[in-house]
């Protein structure tokens, strides 16, 4: 490398504060998915919304890139970090964790679910705060009471946990069952809701 090449590199513009393009892009209708993160008693959450509503809520375990890639593949690659677009869901979740909210008002976008899975999750969305039900029960409401194992899988693939309260679904015998984010989180969420019917592990 020659003298002048070194100089060009050395004197190249330094990294600068980047102009924020999110609001311009969002108001021009060029953002299909807006996302933000939120710290909560069950760890850091990633929230993603489309113009239709909340489409994804993910427990982050250092895998933010994976979650965003999945959204890019399944919804749209036009994803931007735009926390202000998530103000309302974040506010409702904060209130929920503080025990000051029993129902979420935010609209949901169900596009990451289909068929039986969607029906199971929509039945789950109707289970009230602090109440639990069984895999068999939501399978029945989704139209097939025999498919409680499939219902378990459907709940395991819930793209919007907490807001679609799959933590309220337990084994028929009262056992905790599984949970997408790990059963410890399930226990915490039921605790937030003051549910005390859990068998001791």
């Amino acid at each position, binding site marked *: 490398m*020659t003298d*002048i*090449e070194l*100089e*060009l*590199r050395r*004197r*190249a*513009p*330094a*990294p*600068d504060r*980047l*102009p924020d*393009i999110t609001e*311009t*892009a969002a108001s*021009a209708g*060029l*953002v299909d998915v807006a996302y933000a993160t939120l710290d909560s008693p069950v760890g850091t959450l990633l929230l993603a919304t489309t113009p239709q509503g909340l489409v994804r809520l993910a427990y982050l375990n250092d895998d933010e890139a994976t979650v965003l890639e999945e959204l890019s593949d399944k919804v*749209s*690659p*036009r994803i*931007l970090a735009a926390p202000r677009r998530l103000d309302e869901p974040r506010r409702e979740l904060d209130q929920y964790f503080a025990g000051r909210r029993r129902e979420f008002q935010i609209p949901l976008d169900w596009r990451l679910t289909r068929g039986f899975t969607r029906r199971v999750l929509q039945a789950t969305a109707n289970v009230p705060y602090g109440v639990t039900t069984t895999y068999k029960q939501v399978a029945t409401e989704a139209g097939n009471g025999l498919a409680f194992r499939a219902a378990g899988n459907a709940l395991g693939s819930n793209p919007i946990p907490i807001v679609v309260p799959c933590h309220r679904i337990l084994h028929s015998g009262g056992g905790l069952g599984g949970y997408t984010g790990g059963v410890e989180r399930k226990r915490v969420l039921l605790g937030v809701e003051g549910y005390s019917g859990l068998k001791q592990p």
Partner: protein
Amino acid sequence: MLDAHGPDVHRFLVASVGRVDADDCYQETWMAALRAYPRLRDASNLRSWIFTVAHRKVIDHARARRRVAVPVGDVPETPAIATSPALEPDDDLWAYVRELPPKQRTALALRYVADAGYDEISAVMGTSEDAARRNVHEALKRLRTEYRP
């Protein structure tokens, strides 16, 4: 993509159009990119693609500037729009590069700011690799003979 390439795109634009206009070009680059994204077929090289968009914005910017530059009788000694030194701490070497022919300027900015290889420069500028090499070479030659700090 914004996180991965935003900083380099911005530095490329600062080198190409100067600090004051870089922010506008940067906004326009990403708006155009987001607009085109759904139609993007080959997503294998996003970096080259976003630099291609930025390169086009630099060309648009130069064109727009030519349009507003009306000839005047008396040329003022100082620029009509005073740029405060704090706002424009532009390096004089790169200011000199901006006066080079556009192809040479862009080739240098891609190579020495965005660290692009000749294959990437040729992809972004739509030229052959030989032409990319020539542009860089010519520009370096001119800088060596003409540029005095």
